[in-house]
């Protein structure tokens, strides 16, 4: 079955600390992988996406994600978080980059400690 698992429901990190949000997927074919962010009161924003090529993908706002096929993982990282990064983060997997059904993970809420 196709699925996306984000094992951490809620994470709190100090401002300036590094961040890693975990994502594991189960998908029959080679997946397209995404990370979205939802800030309070806002819609979804695409942070980055991956299908092929370099397994380390750079996104907006200083985020990056690394695809590890052997671990079926696509973890999101940021070297130094800012208070404005507090939001909910969704990992997702799909068949194409657009116009497709996308499976979202349950989300990880990120809180920033001053």
């Amino acid at each position: 079955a196709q699925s996306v698992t984000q094992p951490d429901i809620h994470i709190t990190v100090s401002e300036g600390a590094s961040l890693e949000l975990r994502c594991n997927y189960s998908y029959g074919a080679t997946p397209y992988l995404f990370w979205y962010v939802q800030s309070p009161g806002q819609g979804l924003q695409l942070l980055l996406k991956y299908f092929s090529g370099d397994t380390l993908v750079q996104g907006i706002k200083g985020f990056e994600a690394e695809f590890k096929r052997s671990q079926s993982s696509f973890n999101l990282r940021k070297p130094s978080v800012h208070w404005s990064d507090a939001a909910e983060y969704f990992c997702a997997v799909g068949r194409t980059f657009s116009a497709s059904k996308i499976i979202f993970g349950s989300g990880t809420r990120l809180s920033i400690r001053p």
Partner: protein
Amino acid sequence: DTAVSQTPKYLVTQMGNDKSIKCEQNLGHDTMYWYKQDSKKFLKIMFSYNNKELIINETVPNRFSPKSPDKAHLNLHINSLELGDSAVYFCASSPRQAVKAFFGQGTRLTVV
């Protein structure tokens, strides 16, 4: 002059019924969304739609379907309602995906 309006505001219905929630935006936005607010008050995306693509969260049951008669409307149809469908459903719109969205006031659906 409500920017994003949903009707009805409250909806109580029996299990097995089919119901629709309407959403209209007068902002000229390209993208509209439906969210379900879960028991922990988190908003979970159900659908994202503009005139070019529909993105569906596959965890959403097939009983839920978005219908967009035109750019200003995105209605939510729900077939064979179940008790677990009880929730608050929010419609939203944004000028394009990945830009701040404006939310409707929500529709509280209660299935009995």
